């Protein structure tokens, strides 16, 4: 079994999700704002869904498909969100994804966690490219990507139908060479 990494930033710890996190995952991910701006989070977020999701993380990490972390406040130990990267071995790329619970918005936690994920992706995983996508209506997520030094690369128009409405998919990308030249 591969050891699961644990990362740290000034205010945060990024670690594996244990089953103890289930109620808090359900509470935070169950918020309308979180589900509305992501593709795969079910809404309503029912009992049993968090367990099933957490149970899937370790096997897919072992298979090299993705690495997903709980984002936790260092001082108090509270779970505040989730950050992860889907990995593609052929293209040596990582797709960054994240959500921070609504009560914890506006304090720069997402950018702080994402910066560390980007460092982990380039320095530890040796990725060539890290990219991220957001719904056209989710400008806040785009601002995080900009702060990470990612470049806007394109928009897939009306790419998703989210709850009956079409959403653009906006993509940002960052190359290892760019990141090394100007680590964020």
């Amino acid at each position: 079994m591969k050891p699961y990494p644990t990362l740290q930033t000034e205010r945060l710890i990024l670690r594996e999700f244990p089953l103890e996190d289930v109620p808090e995952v359900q509470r935070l991910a169950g918020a309308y704002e979180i589900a509305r701006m992501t593709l795969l989070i079910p809404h309503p977020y029912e009992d049993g869904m968090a367990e099933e999701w957490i149970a899937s993380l370790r096997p897919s990490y072992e298979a090299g498909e993705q690495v997903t972390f709980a984002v936790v406040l260092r001082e108090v130990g509270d779970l505040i969100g989730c950050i992860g990267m889907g990995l593609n071995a052929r293209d040596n790329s990582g797709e960054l994804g994240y959500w921070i619970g609504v009560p914890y918005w506006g304090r720069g936690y997402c950018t702080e966690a994402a910066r560390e994920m980007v460092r982990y992706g380039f320095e530890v995983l040796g990725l060539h490219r890290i990219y991220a996508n957001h719904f056209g209506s989710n400008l806040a997520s785009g601002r995080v990507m900009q702060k990470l030094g990612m470049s806007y690369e394109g928009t897939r128009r009306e790419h998703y139908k989210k709850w009956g409405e079409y959403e653009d998919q906006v993509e940002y990308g960052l190359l290892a060479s760019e990141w090394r030249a100007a680590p964020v």
Partner: protein
Amino acid sequence: MVLRSMSVLWETHRSVEDSERFLRLAEDGYARGDFGGWGVVLKEDGAFVGTCGLDAGYAPEHARAELGYVLSREYWGKGLMPEAVRTVICFGFERAELNRVEARYIVENTASARVMEKAGMTCEGTLREREFIKGSYRDIKLYSILRREFIARRPQG
């Protein structure tokens, strides 16, 4: 693998019944969620020149499909692929109820860029060093056409 799922896009149309039969075949496939990987055949001599289809990245929940095609080299430069692509796009919007048809090509493939543009597709961006193909990282260009654009451009009647 490609041949197994193939059904011919065009045969020499001898009658209206031939055209109807093609459309029924295509619609049956579409009803199964299968857009084939149609064979492209020249009407004038029946030569098989390539394939064209919407079978990559079909996402009915998002009313979207991805266009792919291959054209035999000796038939390049005659406007054949734009014609096939326009036909397949037309099928996608008129028969398969799609909202979006998209395509991706490596930046070096300027012939594909022209095919996309002639078929009325818009370039949406470039994903840098996105795919590792034949020994190096390639930039990928994104193209698409939306239902509302297709309808607006369609000649009336």
